[in-house]
Every structure is written in C-alpha cells, then in structure tokens.
C-alpha cells in the first residue's frame, strides 16, 4: 500500500443523463501539486465532484492512497481525507463566518481557526457576518478556509481564486505553495494560468472530458502555440 499514489483516477466515465461528460479519464497525483486547466465546459468541475462522490461515476475508479473512494457517500470521502473547495463557493448562508470555521475546525491540526484568521484577516473582521452577507471574494476566502480546516491529505480546489483581488490571489498562491511543500496533495483547477503555474510544476490540460496534454509549467508559459492549441482555439463542436 505504501507505494500507492495519493490520488489515482482510472478510466473514469461520468454521464449527466445521456450526455457523456468524462470519457475514461485517468490521472495520478502524489504529494506534489497538480494543476488542471482547460476551457469552459470541458469537465473539470465534473471530475472534482466525481472524486468527492457528489456525482456518480458510471465506470472507473477513484482511489486515495489505495483506498477506493467511489461509491462512497461524500462525507466518507471527506473523512478519508479529501478537502474540497467547490466552484461557486457554496458557503452556508445562515451560518456566520465564525460558525463555519467552528463547524469543521478541530483543535490540534495543522490548520486552526487562529491561523485562518491570520491568513485572511478580512474574515476575522467579518466573523459575525452570515455567509450570505459576505462579498463574493470574502465568500471565496471562507470556502478555502473551510477546506483547509479539515486538515486533509488531499485538497481538491475548483477555481479557488475566482473573484479574489490580486493581492489576495498572491497570498493564496503562497499558501498553496506552502501546502504543496508540507506533503498535502493538491489538485488545483484553475483558469488563471499564472496561478496554476506558480503553484505547480505539473500541469494537465483537459479537453472534452479527457486529459489532452500533460506538461510542465515552463513549457506552457513559454509555448504560445501550445497554449493556443489547447486553451485558445475553439474545439470542434
């Protein structure tokens, strides 16, 4: 078991009704961060949700450190050590910031509520605000914090910097790099290439429900043709 990769996705197929969204996707990730990029509607969020057990997989497998995850309910996936930042924030509107953090926070872990407040001072200022009474960016910080407080083995983040001000983005990048160094796995879905490349060296490009390209940050940044091909050109309908 010791040699099993942290996250292993194999031949994953997901359907919404009759539309086939993930076409036998496979990937592996260890403790070094992995970024996933790709155009709108290519299936990135679907992959994240499938890992979390929030959409059912028709075929294929998701394993965490050798343990099979799919077929489990989401809370058991989370308890197995996966932290999830969903796209669109999904904070609880009737819980205050403080309650959000208390809800998931447990004493003794790497991430504590104090550390969250240090990392995002804005949240400390708004600790009594309800989740619905936060600005978009504040919600995003809260969604990230909520996942961090679980002290997971693997973090699945779906566009965590959407709606964040550039300074905060810089800050989040710092945090993510640190997480990467601390041995926690990271699967980062990003539209912001600069964030993706700063956080991880390994980058995968998703296209039409499959991994179309695996490359490193350097080549993606420097190879304009490559970028255009995978991220800029309209895919055939």
């Amino acid at each position, binding site marked *: 078991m010791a040699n099993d990769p942290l996250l292993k996705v194999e031949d994953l197929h997901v359907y*919404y*009704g009759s539309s086939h969204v993930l076409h036998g996707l496979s990937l592996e990730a260890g403790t070094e961060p992995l970024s996933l990029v790709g155009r709108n509607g290519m299936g990135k969020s679907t992959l994240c949700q499938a890992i979390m057990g*929030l*959409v059912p997989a028709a075929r294929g497998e998701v394993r965490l450190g050798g343990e099979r995850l799919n*077929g489990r309910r989401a809370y058991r996936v989370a308890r197995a050590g996966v932290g999830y930042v969903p796209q669109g924030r999904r904070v609880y509107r009737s819980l205050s910031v403080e309650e959000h953090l208390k809800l998931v926070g447990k004493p003794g872990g790497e991430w504590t509520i104090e550390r969250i407040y240090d990392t995002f001072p804005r949240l400390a200022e708004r600790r009594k605000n309800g989740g619905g009474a936060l600005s978009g960016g504040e919600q995003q910080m809260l969604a990230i914090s909520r996942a961090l407080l679980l002290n997971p083995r693997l973090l699945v983040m779906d566009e965590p910097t959407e709606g964040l001000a550039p300074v905060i983005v810089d800050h989040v990048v710092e945090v993510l790099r640190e997480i990467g160094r601390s041995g926690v796995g990271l699967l980062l879905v990003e539209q912001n290439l600069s964030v993706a490349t700063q956080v991880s060296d390994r980058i995968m490009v998703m296209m039409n429900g499959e991994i179309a390209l695996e490359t490193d940050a350097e080549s993606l940044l420097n190879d304009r043709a490559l970028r255009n091909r995978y991220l800029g050109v309209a895919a055939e309908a």
Partner: protein
Amino acid sequence: MRWILPLAVIALLLVYPFVVNSFWLVQIGGRTLGFGTIVLSLVFLTAYTGMLSLAQMSVAGVAGYATAYFTAPTSGVGLLLPWPLALILALGLATVAGLLIGLVAVRTRGIYTLMITLAVAMAFYFLTLQNYDLFNGYTGFNNVQPPVILGLDLGANLPFYYMSVVLAAACYFGVRHVVRTPFGLALQGLRDEPDRLRALGYNVPLLRVLAFGLAGFIAGIGGILNIWLNASISPGSVALNPVIDVLMAGVLGGIGHPIGAYIGAFVFTVVDNFAIDFIARERFNTLIGLIFLAIVLFSPDGLTGLVHRAWTRGTGWARRNDGDARETDDIGK
C-alpha cells in the same frame, strides 16, 4: 408519427360515450374533465411558475358557489340572473379570487406558497361553513342545473360530456399555447430566477398575480363543470379532502406537463371509486394512500413521466438520476 397519439386521443374521447355506461360517462368521464381542469390550473401554476397553489379547489369553489348563487337560489339566498350573465360573473369572480390569492402569495415561493395557499383554502372553507348570507352555511346549494340552450339540455349525460370535452380541450390547448408565448416564457423565468427576471425589466409581482389570475380562470371553468356534475355545492366541496385531492391527482398524473392533469384526474377518480372493490371495505383508504405513495416514490414526475420514460427509452422506469430530477436528487447512494 407525432400526430398518431393526439388523433387517437381525440377519437377515443369522441367514441367514449358509446362504449360505456352512464356511470363511466358522467361520473368518471365528466368528472375527469371537470376535476381535471381544476388540476390543470394547479399544474399550470406549478410547472410554469414554480408556485404550488393548494387553493385551486377553493377558486373552483368560488365559481361553483357563484353559479349556484346566481342560477339556483336556495332558502332565500341567491339572486336569479340569466345564465350567460351568471356564468360570466362566476368566471369573473373566480379570476378575481385567483388574483387575490396571487396578491396574498405574491412574495412567497415554492413550498411556502403551498402552505399559505393551503391556509387560504381553509379560511375559505370555514367562511362557507359559517356564512349563511352568501354561502348558505353548512347546507350550501342544491339543484344547480346546467342551462337548456335551444332545446338542448346540457344537463343530459351526452351533451354534458361533450361540453366538458370541449371546455377541457380549450383549457388544455390554451395552457399549451400560453406557455410558449412571451408571457409564458416570462413566467418560466419567474420560476427559475425571479431576481434575474426583474433585472431584465419585468414586473415580477405583477407576473405572479397574473399567473394566479389565469389559473383562477381555468379553475373557474373546472369549478362550473364540477358543480353541474354534482348539482350541488357545500362546504364539503371545498374542505381539506377535496383540496388535497387536487394535489394528489396532479402528482399522480405528473405535475410537469399539462396532460398530467387529466391523466391524474382520471386515475384518481377510478382509484377513488374502485379501490373499495380491491380490498376489504373498511381499509380501502390505505390502498389509495399506498398507491399514491408508490407513485411519489418511484416516479417523481407521475404517470406521465413513467410513460414518457418507458416510451423514449423502452427500458426500466427505475432508472433514476436522469432528466430534471438530477439536481436535487440524492445521488450516489
């Protein structure tokens, strides 16, 4: 191919009177059409505006009471008017009742609308029960007969049936038409995202109230058919049971499509009448409840959904997680 089914339905409706006895003609057929039209008003509201009104039976009751009040005064209560005027008044009052309920419910959504309209329905019930000047209290009105036009007695079985078919069809196609007009599309926008609709320049409360008014008009037609079928109306006609019956029929048939209203009304009427034959005479309500429960459990979109899925897929109806139910359904267990 697309035309086969509608043609078959029309043919069936036309020959139906000649193959069944008077009970199936009037009490099953006539009731399906009249009651189904009331259910249609509910389905229209729910499917296209996202507002679930339990007060549709009460609105139908307003039309029924008005018809009785103006065509069949009883023990000093009522005012005899020529029937065309009486009917116009009845439909007008039903529409107004719909609009008023819309006003009360205008700021609520979904399940909240359900509860509020249920309470409105009960208020109306108690009003009819306690008021003797307009509703003749507990006794209500008896002997409310349809008019005789040019020697044609609309109360006789056959004319009554065909009249019901024509009115029900008019309501059904009316709804199908309206939901594809700009007004109908706006209603659907209202169902999905009222804030966005407002930001596009629509008057959201007005739309809601208008939708209720239109539903009230439809329910009014159903209510008039219903009172002519029973020839009487009393608080019992607008009590909790009939109010819930409308919802049950809607759900049985499928609350997502107008045709579900009539399918539901038909199945509901048949089950209601014949359940007693399938089980000891004391426990038939258990059977009705279980059938209903089974439909809710296994087919969220009612019989229409069941048939539709069988039709399009040819495979099992137990396949879940598809179509619209996906978003809210519990996935992955």
